[in-house]
């Protein structure tokens, strides 16, 4: 840890587990993901820590290349094993995900943990009806008869509010509209009662009037089923609609974390502040938008120090020395910025 004065918060709080008495459902510690080829190494995720309680929605917010999807995929071990170096630890419901063998991994995926993707057309199998695909998942994890699995599939389509569900069971993915396809994928993800749902930009490809329907549906199902959820998005508005907590990623690190209202109303990190300012939302038409200058760093050549420093308007010499350690202004309210000590801690007094 850094020698800066930080408020008295126990080590347990800093580890992020001291919220009520719940055991964490997910514990990710010092996660590092590198993609190695003969020519180069891409440092996609660089020491990520977070935890999710049962029934909680954590939004990982970041732009393309920030490592948010890679983090999610690492949790399901979906990354190509030969080219990927994963370090650190991922525990889901007490299981060490990185140590699981192939069979145990098969049980985990779709059983304890489910994932939904941005593009349902590529995530669903085009040559099977959605009824068959959902029933197959149920049979694989829960056993029982085909008829029972099909009945469960029908139940699930009704749960996700697909109109005329009985007829839709025998539809192929291409016969459904984008919104219905996304609902079908959610139905499949929920088929075995997962305790953790991983959602990778599931509403990004949808139209506005459909996106809000799917968001409201996901929010309701998540609450009713008590699923812990990690929701990856680049859209601040979507995060505001669904998140309990937000973790902001930049260049493979979580640079800020906290309850959704705190992060959106009083962002601590200059990157989060810049992201909010540059998101067009009712700005005056007379003035330019306060854009963040420059572009994100090259993950093949990450310099020492804060990765945001080259684009930061508040940069100081200290920023280039080393990536600032997490600093807490309150339990669960973190930012990795050297300015936290002076500004926010004074305000917290």
């Amino acid at each position: 840890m850094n020698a800066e004065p930080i408020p008295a918060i126990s080590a347990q709080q800093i580890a992020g587990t001291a919220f009520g008495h719940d055991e964490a459902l997910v514990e990710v510690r010092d996660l590092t993901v590198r993609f190695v080829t003969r020519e180069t190494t891409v440092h996609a995720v660089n020491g990520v820590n977070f935890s999710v309680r049962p029934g909680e929605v954590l939004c990982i917010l970041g732009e393309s290349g920030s490592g948010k999807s890679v983090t999610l995929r690492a949790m399901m071990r979906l990354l190509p094993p030969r080219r990927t170096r994963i370090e650190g630890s991922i525990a889901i419901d007490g299981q060490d995900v990185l140590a699981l063998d192939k069979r145990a991994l098969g049980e985990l995926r779709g059983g304890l943990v489910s994932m939904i993707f941005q593009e349902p057309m590529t995530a669903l199998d085009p040559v099977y009806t959605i009824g068959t695909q959902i029933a197959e998942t149920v049979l694989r994890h829960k056993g029982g008869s085909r008829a029972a699995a099909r009945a469960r599939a029908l139940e699930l389509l009704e749960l996700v509010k697909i109109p005329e569900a009985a007829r839709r069971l025998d539809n192929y993915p291409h016969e459904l509209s984008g919104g219905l396809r996304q609902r079908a994928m959610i139905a499949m993800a929920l088929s075995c009662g997962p305790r953790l749902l991983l959602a990778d930009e599931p509403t990004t490809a949808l139209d506005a009037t459909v996106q809000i329907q799917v968001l409201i549906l996901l929010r309701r199902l998540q609450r009713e089923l008590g699923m812990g959820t990690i929701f990856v998005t680049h859209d601040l508005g979507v995060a505001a609609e669904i998140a309990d907590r937000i973790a902001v990623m930049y260049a493979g690190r979580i640079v800020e974390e906290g309850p959704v209202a705190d992060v959106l109303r009083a962002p601590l990190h200059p990157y989060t502040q810049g992201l909010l300012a540059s998101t067009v939302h009712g700005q005056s038409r007379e003035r330019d938008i306060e854009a963040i200058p420059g572009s994100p760093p090259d993950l093949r050549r990450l310099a020492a120090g804060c990765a945001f420093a080259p684009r930061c308007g508040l940069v100081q010499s200290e920023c280039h020395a080393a990536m600032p350690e997490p600093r807490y202004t309150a339990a669960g309210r973190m930012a990795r910025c050297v300015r936290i000590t002076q500004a926010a801690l004074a305000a917290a007094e």
Partner: protein
Amino acid sequence: MSATADQRDIGGPAQPLLIARNLAKHFAARGASKSARVRAVDDVSFTLFKGETLGIVGESGCGKSTLARLLLHLIQRDSGELIFDGEPVGAPRGITVAALRRNVQMVFQDSYSSLNPRMPVQDSVAFGPFVHGRRKSEARRAARDMLVKVGLNPDLFGPRYPHELSGGQKQRVNIARALAIEPRMVILDEAVSALDKSVEAQVLNLLRALKQQFNLTYLFISHDLNVVRYISDRVLVMYLGRVVELGPSEAIFIQPLHPYTRALLGSQPSMDPAHRIEQPPVTGDPPSPIDPPSGCRFHPRCPFAEPVCAQRSPELGAWRERDSHVAACHMLDPASGHSKAMQ
């Protein structure tokens, strides 16, 4: 620069730069029955004034991209009329398609696939002026100037290939290429939609600055209502190939008239976790533009639909002047017979 723009101006500032009258484009639907037609653009009329930014919003399948392609003659219209600065496009005594394209350029959403991957970007930018008759050396010089104007150092970025640039940089190149032949109007078809928010803001600022500098008129197509509100003077809302509402930007966003526009605005995430949207404003997906619903195309999803909505197609009210705010809804027409119609 503005002096040359004035020279090209034929009808004076009051004459609209582009008038579209009753444009229609139907496609044969693949796989469906023989008579099935995709009514991508159906009876669309609007006026684009000199120096303004007209935003076009709508969901996928509403025909906004087809409309853009019709305006540039990238696809042929089935019927309707296009008038560029007083001259009918493609008509015997009007302006030729080639001349139209010298005046109107387009920037697409996918910044990578719209650049030639085997060509250094400076050559891509120089290609337009060269094809339109400038000498090679002159075209190169114009390309370098234009790269500077979009914020790219031509010595550093000019010799690079598209894959060596970031998404934002590639889109800057596309903008430079569009402007290299000094057009009067630019169609931006979801030009910032694929960019990250921080980069999107940079490109929006750039577009606003260039519009000033080169005296441009923009047609800005996007699904992002916040961006459209920020950049547009007037907004046109499309639904399933039809114009449902047209008016000044602030009027549309503060006082939307059409139930669809209201639903679209109400579907925007709140940005405030304390005031989340609890009920979706409309249910269901937009229907397919193949054989769209009868009458008002929004009626199957409209909370105010009555029998008249399925029977007759509402007219887009009388559009008189620049600031007219009109919408195609039976509730706005006292003679329609709709019970909620304004008397």
